[in-house]
Structures are given as structure tokens and as C-alpha cells.
């Protein structure tokens, strides 16, 4: 009798897992079928909805093209540099705002309401300040990631257990020791959450800036492919960019889970 309930639950869970798989397969199948139907229907101009086979071929061509890897390298370099700068600045500002209640009350609302505004519109200013090369994209990406990290760090700073802070002070820790031994380890989770959000912001902002004005990077590739009207390759490139963004997000999510 006592064994019956867990067994029934297990059977039900297994059945539900199978049903979830079927639903997912059905959705994928429906998507593929509708796509192929639209592709062959003639309702759209040729190539606007290319067949999935031609997208797969374009994907393969893209992956064996050295120019793709060179552009990918540029974009990742820009995003990484932007994230580093944005994270360092964001953690410093976040600690200051989180540690001092008055500073937090004075400046955090401005950061909070400024953070969701569309950052890409600052690109003309970045071009004027840093030129048309990589630096302007890095600066814009850094700005995009800064807000997420700063706000997350400030919130994390306020959540630190006061006892830990008192322990550090009772050991007469220097400000540097307090920052590296007490504050940062205690608020690693919110900082990592901020970095995760910041990475997404930095990557998309860098890519968009590249589509606007650049001569290298994946955003530049998106733009040139669009101008050539090579739609299968455009789909293929966007699929790759989405996968890269998802992978970056998943890796940082994994790191954040490990840190708990």
C-alpha cells in the first residue's frame, strides 16, 4: 500500500514527461510544416521565406567561411571588453550607492529610470567621442551593461547580513579588505545576476551599433547580407547570433547557480 503512491506518482511523471516531449515535437513539426508551406505557397516574394533546406545550406556555408569567424571574433571582443568595463564601473558605483544610504537615495533613482531607456540612441554621441572604430561600440556596450551591474550590486550590497560587516570591522579590516573579503563574496549572487543581464545588454547593443555604422563584426555582416538580399544567409546568421546569445546567457546562469 505504502509503495503504491510513489509508484503511481512515478508513472504519472513519466507519462507527463513523454507528453511534454510530444508537445514540443508537435510544435516543431507544425512550425516546419507551416514554414515550408509558406515558402512554397508563392504568397510572398521569392526568397523572403526561403525553404529550411536553403537556410541549412547557408548555415553550413557561413560556418566554413573564414570571414564569419573573423567577424565573430570582433563582436565577441567588443562585447567582452564592454562587459569588463561596464562590470568594473558598475561594481564600484554599486558598492558606493549600496554602502551609503544618502548617495543611494540621491543617485539610484536616476540610474534606475535611465537604465531601461533605449541605449542605442546614444550611439551618435559615442561616435563623436570615440570615433567610428571598435571603441565607440565598446563604450556603448559598457554603458549598456553598467546600469544592470550597478543597480544589482547596490541592491545586493544592502542585503548583506549586518553581522558579517560587523565581524569585518571588529577585525579592523581595511576598506580594500572589507570590499574583497566581506562585501564582494557576500553579494556574489546579485553581482553575477547583474553581469548576466549586463552581458545580454552589451551583446545586443554592440551588435545593433555594428549594424548602424561599422566595417567589421556580426552586426556589420547582418547589414551587408541584407543589402545583398541574401535572405537564407541572413536567417542563418541570425540563428547563429541567437544561439550565441542563448549560450552566453546559459553559461552565466550555470555559473550563478554554482555560486549559490
Amino acid at each position: 500500500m505504502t509503495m503504491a503512491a510513489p509508484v503511481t506518482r512515478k508513472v504519472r511523471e513519466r507519462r507527463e514527461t513523454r507528453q511534454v516531449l510530444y508537445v514540443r515535437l508537435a510544435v516543431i513539426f507544425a512550425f516546419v510544416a507551416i514554414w515550408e508551406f509558406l515558402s512554397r505557397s508563392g504568397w510572398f516574394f521569392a526568397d523572403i521565406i526561403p525553404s529550411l533546406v536553403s537556410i541549412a545550406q547557408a548555415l553550413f556555408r557561413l560556418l566554413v567561411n573564414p570571414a564569419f569567424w573573423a567577424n565573430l571574433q570582433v563582436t565577441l571582443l567588443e562585447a567582452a571588453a564592454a562587459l569588463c568595463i561596464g562590470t568594473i564601473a558598475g561594481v564600484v558605483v554599486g558598492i558606493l550607492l549600496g554602502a551609503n544610504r544618502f548617495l543611494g537615495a540621491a543617485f539610484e533613482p536616476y540610474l534606475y529610470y535611465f537604465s531601461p531607456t533605449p541605449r542605442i540612441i546614444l550611439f551618435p554621441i559615442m561616435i563623436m567621442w570615440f570615433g567610428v572604430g571598435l571603441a565607440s561600440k565598446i563604450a556603448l556596450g559598457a554603458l549598456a551593461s553598467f546600469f544592470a551591474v550597478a543597480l544589482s550590486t547596490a541592491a545586493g550590497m544592502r542585503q548583506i547580513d549586518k553581522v558579517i560587516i560587523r565581524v569585518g570591522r571588529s577585525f579592523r579590516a581595511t576598506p580594500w579588505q572589507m570590499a574583497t573579503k566581506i562585501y564582494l563574496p557576500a553579494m556574489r549572487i546579485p553581482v553575477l545576476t547583474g553581469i548576466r543581464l549586463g552581458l545580454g545588454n552589451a551583446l545586443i547593443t554592440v551588435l545593433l551599433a555594428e549594424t548602424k555604422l561599422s566595417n567589421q563584426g556580426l552586426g556589420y555582416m547582418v547589414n551587408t547580407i541584407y543589402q545583398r538580399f541574401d535572405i537564407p544567409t541572413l536567417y542563418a546568421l541570425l540563428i547563429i547570433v541567437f544561439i550565441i546569445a542563448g549560450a552566453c546567457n546559459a553559461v552565466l546562469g550555470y555559473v550563478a547557480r554554482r555560486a549559490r
Partner: protein
Amino acid sequence: MRIAAVAERRAPLTATRWFPLTVGALTIVAVGVIFEVLLRIGVLNRYIIPLPSEVLAAFERIVAEEGVIERTGTSAFEVLSAGFACIAVGVPLGVLLYRFNILRRALEDWVAALAAAPIVLAYPLFMVLFGRGSMTVIVIAFAYGLAPIVLKTVEGLSETRSVLVNVGKSLNLSEAQMFWKILFPSAIPSIFTGIRLGWTFCVIAVIGVEFLVNLGGLGQLINDLAERYDMPGTYASIGFVIGISMIFFIILEWVEKWLQPAR
């Protein structure tokens, strides 16, 4: 005694919400004044950074000559069209995912992945599909703003307090009555949080795409002025867009707080 009296007088002022905010605003003004001085004495380059006084003066010009009000109307129309479409599709989709648990388990992660995907980057593709017009902007904003509304609707319905559901069951409510009388009202605060997030994404997408494609409202204005190398105008229009966006977010947040149940 005097020190204590002064401290007593000062404490309430610094403790108010407005005093730190005013200090923050004055700091921003002070930074503007420092830039003005540095630019006037030639430490900073006036071709790269315009005088803050010129930027302030440009506000009047962009309102009078660049049709900021009409452009704000165009952008607002696009944001609201996409935003209401997100609600019209997102809330029923969220209800559907809540109602059918298998569907939720199968698709919720995919919807979350959609929320994190850089959809705006696909704007060339949307232009191919929907042409170079407002429709493209609205569709991109819709795609960008949909996921948070779906996810928060599911979350809100799932987190309905069991005591409320039990009251509904004890009154023998039908499934429709249970939804309209218990589940949906209880989920409204969470749904509105989703709407706030979704509409924020819509604003980002609309202004961003207008700027990138040089099409439509306020985003196009920034692009136009930058291409004309009208630096004070560019800075003023960016400031205007940031200000308008901030007011929009503050209003959304205010409504969201108003909808939260009293604790």
C-alpha cells in the same frame, strides 16, 4: 546644546525622500555647469561636445522646427499598438499555458528564451517581411514585448492563494466563474508587472528601430540631427527621448504599485 539642536533640525530634512533627490538633480546641474566652463575655456572640444546652454536652447528649436510633438505621437502610436497587441495575445497565451500544465511545461522555457533573444537585431528581416514602414516597427516591438506578459500571466495565475481557490470550490463555482471571479482578479498585479516589462521593451524596440532604420518618430529625429551634424539638436533630442521614456516608466510603475494589493 546648539549642536544637538542643529542636528535635530537637520535630521528630518535629510530623511525626506526629496532632499537626496534634489541633491542628485543639483549634482547633474553642477556637472552641466562644469562642462559649460571647460568647453568655454577650451579644455574640451566644442565640435565634439556642444555647450550645455546651446543644448538647452535647442529644445525650443526641436519642438518648433523638427515636429517633436508629431514625432512623439508617431512613436507613441507604435508603442501603444505593439503594447496592446502584446496584451491581447500575451494574456490569453499565458492563460492557455496555465490551464494546460503539459503545454506550460513544454513551452514556458521557450517563451523565456524568446524574452532573452536579441530579436531587435532581426530588423532587416522584418523589413523584408513587412516593408519599410510603421508596421515593421510595431511587429518588432510586439515580438520583443510579448514574452514578459505571457510569463507574468502564468506566474500570477499560478500564485493565486490556495485559500481563495478553496473558497471558490466551496461555493461550487464553474470553471469560468472560478477564472473571472478568483484567478484573474488575483493575478492582475502580476499581469501588470508583465505589462510594465513588456511595454518597456516595446519603447526600447520602437525608438531603437526608428533610429536604426531612420524611420518614423523620435528615433528618426535623433538620426536626422546626427547626420546633419547638429550637435546641440542631437543632444537635446536624446535628452528629450530619455526624459519621455523616464516619464513613461514612472507612470507604468505608479500604476503597477497602485494595483498591488494592500499589505
